[in-house]
């Protein structure tokens, strides 16, 4: 017997009552009031529904509280990472990343808490509540990983950093669209970083960012996006690409890029 996810609680009851009803329906189709099972008055019915709704509202309230703390932590991490845009911050990127990683510990405990606030199979029922913060956190994780290794974070890595799952079946997971949205946020952050790294005298970084973003762009072009928020966000990627190309252009006509490339890999 394969029971559908998320409804197994009522499934057995429903099956039994359905059998009962259809039996009585077949025997006495025409006699009125044959379906005596599960009768409720209008008032009873509405208070029954009201019970459902208020239970749901309680859950939403709980979720909102945890999400608020998550958002707070996400802002802290962002503040730490923002300092890479400062000329002084460029030198100690590793230590910034280290600090950010420490803050991700708080995130992990909070996501652990979030998981307990609602039934695991109703992820998408409450998805809206944490969608935004999960995208932010994905961005932050991707940004940290990029600063450390200059490569694109995988979905599995993000899930590991946030202590959540990749597959829907295994519990609280990272939705693919949220992951992609987080990556797109990172792209615009990187275009900013390219500009600021030139200001700080690091001429090699924009070239590497350019290659990276171009690869991302061709990756995204493989996707058949629907007319949804993700698509809208993706439409912004071309401006990031353009911006970085301009930076690279500015560097190359002045011969700054090459000079950096030869001594850049120090």
């Amino acid at each position, binding site marked *: 017997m394969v029971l559908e996810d998320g*409804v197994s609680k*009522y499934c057995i009851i*429903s099956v039994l009552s359905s059998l009962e009803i259809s039996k009585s329906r077949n025997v006495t189709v025409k006699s009125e009031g044959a379906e005596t099972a*599960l009768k*409720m008055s209008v*008032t009873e019915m*509405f208070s029954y529904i009201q019970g459902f709704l208020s239970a749901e509202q309680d859950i939403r309230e709980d979720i909102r509280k945890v999400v608020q703390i998550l958002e707070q932590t996400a802002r802290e991490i962002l503040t730490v990472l923002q300092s890479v845009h400062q000329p002084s911050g460029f030198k100690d990127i590793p230590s910034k990343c280290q600090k950010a990683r420490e803050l991700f510990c708080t995130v992990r405990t909070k996501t652990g808490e979030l998981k307990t606030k609602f039934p695991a199979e109703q992820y998408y029922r409450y998805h809206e509540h944490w969608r935004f913060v999960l995208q932010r956190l994905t961005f932050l994780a991707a940004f940290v990983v990029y600063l450390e290794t200059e490569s694109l974070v995988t979905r599995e890595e993000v899930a590991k950093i946030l202590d959540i799952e990749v597959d829907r079946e295994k519990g609280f997971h990272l939705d693919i669209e949220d992951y992609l949205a987080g990556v797109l946020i990172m792209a615009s952050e990187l275009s900013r970083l390219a500009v600021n790294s030139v200001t700080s005298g690091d001429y090699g970084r924009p070239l590497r960012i350019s290659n990276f973003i171009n690869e991302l762009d061709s990756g995204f072009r*493989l996707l058949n996006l629907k007319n949804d928020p993700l698509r809208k966000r993706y439409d912004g990627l071309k401006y990031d690409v353009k911006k970085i*190309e301009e930076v690279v*252009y500015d560097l190359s006509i002045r011969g700054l890029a090459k000079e950096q490339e030869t001594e850049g890999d120090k």
Partner: protein
Amino acid sequence: MSKREDEGCVRNRRTDAGQKADDCVNSDSPVIGAFKVFQRELDTKHDKHERLVKISRDVTIESKRTIFLLHRVTSVPDFENILNDADVKLDGVRQKIGQIAEELRGEDLHQFHRAFTPGIQEYVEAVSFHHFIRHRKLISLEEINARLVFMKEDQTTKGGGEDVCAGPCVLTFQVTPTDYLLGVADLTGELMRMCISSVGNGDMDTPFELSGFLREIHDGFSYIGNTGPYEVSKKLHTLRQSLGKVEDACYALRVRGSEIPKHMLADVFTSRAAHLETDDGIA
């Protein structure tokens, strides 16, 4: 001059990268590889969504037709036939919902909820209208859900059939409380139309019965009030209007019913329900 050349150069490089990706040449790159996986995943999801929307539209159309059919009971002497016809139609709708249930097997019901919620609401409206005409009662959420159990063999058969062999898997479809509420809110509109048209046919009892029932539903919705989802509170306004129309009709019947000849009663309400009457004509 040199600027344009250089820009062109950069752009060329970019399009090259894109073409390579399209030609699967660049598939050794981990990023492109990962995005190929994403592409498959997203496409599967979107396809499923589209299929669900399509089924939902079919459910909506069939449910609407059932409701139109049921509206004929006020003018036909043997409404039992119509009710049985409607039952057959609703069985057809349930088959379609069975397809939804099958699409959703192993998926999160709420992930694709937006795709099929209009159809389900229309179904709730039809099935509760049918139930009301037959039993003069409000169908409960459990009763609706109990009918949406499907035994899956080679083809979807309606749940609870005696000829189901051993070991078929059971698929259920659960109408969410919100969909149920919204469907019931739509039902009140149908009841209002039924009330007005039954007045037109000189039926003096149905309007009072309906106004009592509508009032009960209205009380129920007021009880839920703002705690419900946004759409529910939006429907509350329309519900009030329907209730007002029915109460006006009952008032007019009580005050002037004894004075006005029955064949003129319809005229009394035409000003109020002109568009509804034309709709009925089409049906």
